[in-house]
Every structure is written in structure tokens, then in C-alpha cells.
């Protein structure tokens, strides 16, 4: 039969035992990632309310930029077409243009 371990030797062993865990720089981010993954996703409406000011600003910028680019593109194209047809119109009535 095996004799019971000597309690004194265990105490001595524990007294000199040092834990030296390997440092993991990803430990903290991984913990937070797991926490956020476990958290239920915020509905978009709640998310929008939470960021109302930023979202309102971004929406205003998007609307103004879209309007400005749309207006500019339409006017540029109309102006180019108007210029082309006006030039053709005048040249078609210009005898000098027909003789060259």
C-alpha cells in the first residue's frame, strides 16, 4: 500500500512554486470581443437614436452633396447640348460656312 504524501513536502513545494504565465497581448481585446459578441445586437433605430447628432449631420451632408452634384451634372449637360445645337443652328443659316 502506498504511504500518504508527506504534508510538509507539499507545503515546501507550494512555497517555492511560481507561476510564470506567457503574456498574451490579445487577451484583453479577445475578452471584450467575446463580451460584445455575447451582447444582443442593438436595433438600427436605437442605434440611430444613440448617434442622432452624427447621423443627422451625415444625412444633411449626403442630401446636400447629392443635390449639388445632380444639379451641376444636369446643367452642365444641358449647357453643352444647348451650345452644340445653337452652333449648328447658326452655321446652317450662315452662307459663309457653306462655302468653305
Amino acid at each position, binding site marked *: 500500500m502506498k504511504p500518504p504524501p508527506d504534508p510538509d513536502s507539499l507545503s515546501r513545494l507550494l512555497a517555492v512554486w511560481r507561476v510564470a504565465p506567457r503574456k498574451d497581448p490579445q487577451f484583453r481585446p479577445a475578452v471584450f470581443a467575446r463580451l460584445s459578441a455575447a451582447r444582443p445586437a442593438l436595433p438600427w433605430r436605437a442605434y440611430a437614436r444613440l448617434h442622432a447628432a452624427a447621423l443627422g449631420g451625415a444625412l444633411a451632408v449626403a442630401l446636400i452633396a447629392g443635390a449639388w452634384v445632380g444639379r451641376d451634372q444636369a446643367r452642365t449637360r444641358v449647357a453643352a447640348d444647348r451650345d452644340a*445645337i445653337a452652333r*449648328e443652328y447658326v452655321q446652317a443659316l*450662315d452662307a459663309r460656312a*457653306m462655302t468653305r
Partner: protein
Amino acid sequence: MKNFWLTLVVLLAAAATSFGVFYVVNDAPAIRRAAREGDAMAWLRAEFRLDDAQFAAIKQLHDNYSLVCSQHCAAIMSAQRRHAPAAEVAALEQTCVDAMTAHFRQVAALMPPGQGERYLAIVLPRVSHYTHEGAPTLQVKS
């Protein structure tokens, strides 16, 4: 993260809608169609908001002027063929410019108030700034 992408989609949709609305409001499809088809009379009608009577009167003026224009054209070509002095060709060309300018003023007089001035502001600079770079390829359609 999903909410961020959803927000981005909402912003893009808002920008696209805004673009579309302002593009349509500032577009002039009748003018662009006339230019695409080289139809100057359709352009005049759309650009200067001519009613049927004004359009018919202006079209008649154009038809009449095209005969005058042909005579000027023939006179200039004849002078060029017989190598007439430059002064004679210049005088014929000046006659052409004067007739064209008078024609444009007659057309402007038939247009609605305000449109005639706008018409002259568009066409007259194109007469005086003619660069003699080549013959036109399109005629005024009736």
C-alpha cells in the same frame, strides 16, 4: 458593425435620391433631345417656349431666309470660283452677316417677351465669333 453598414447604405440612398431629384428638376429633356437629333427648330420651340402661332411664324421666316441664304451662298461661291478680289468676297460675306443678323432680330421679335433678348444673346455671338473652321454637317430641320 452591422448598424454602421446599414447607416452607410441609408446615407448613400439619401444622396442618390437627392441626386436624382435635382438632376430631373434641372434637366431639359426637350432641349437635349433636339440637340441629339440635330433638330434646331425643335430646340427653338423648347428653349424659347414658343406657342404654335409663334413657332409657325418663325418657321416661315426660316424657310424664307433659307432662300436668301442660298443666294448669298451662291454669290460667295461664284466669287471664289472666279478668284474675285478679297475685298469683293469680304463684302459679300459682310452682306451675309448683315442679312443673318437682321433675320435673327426678326425671329427675336416674334418670340415671347424676354425670350427674344435671350435668343439674340445666344445666337449673335456665334455669328461674330465664327472661326471658319469648316462647313457645317447639319442643316436646320423643318
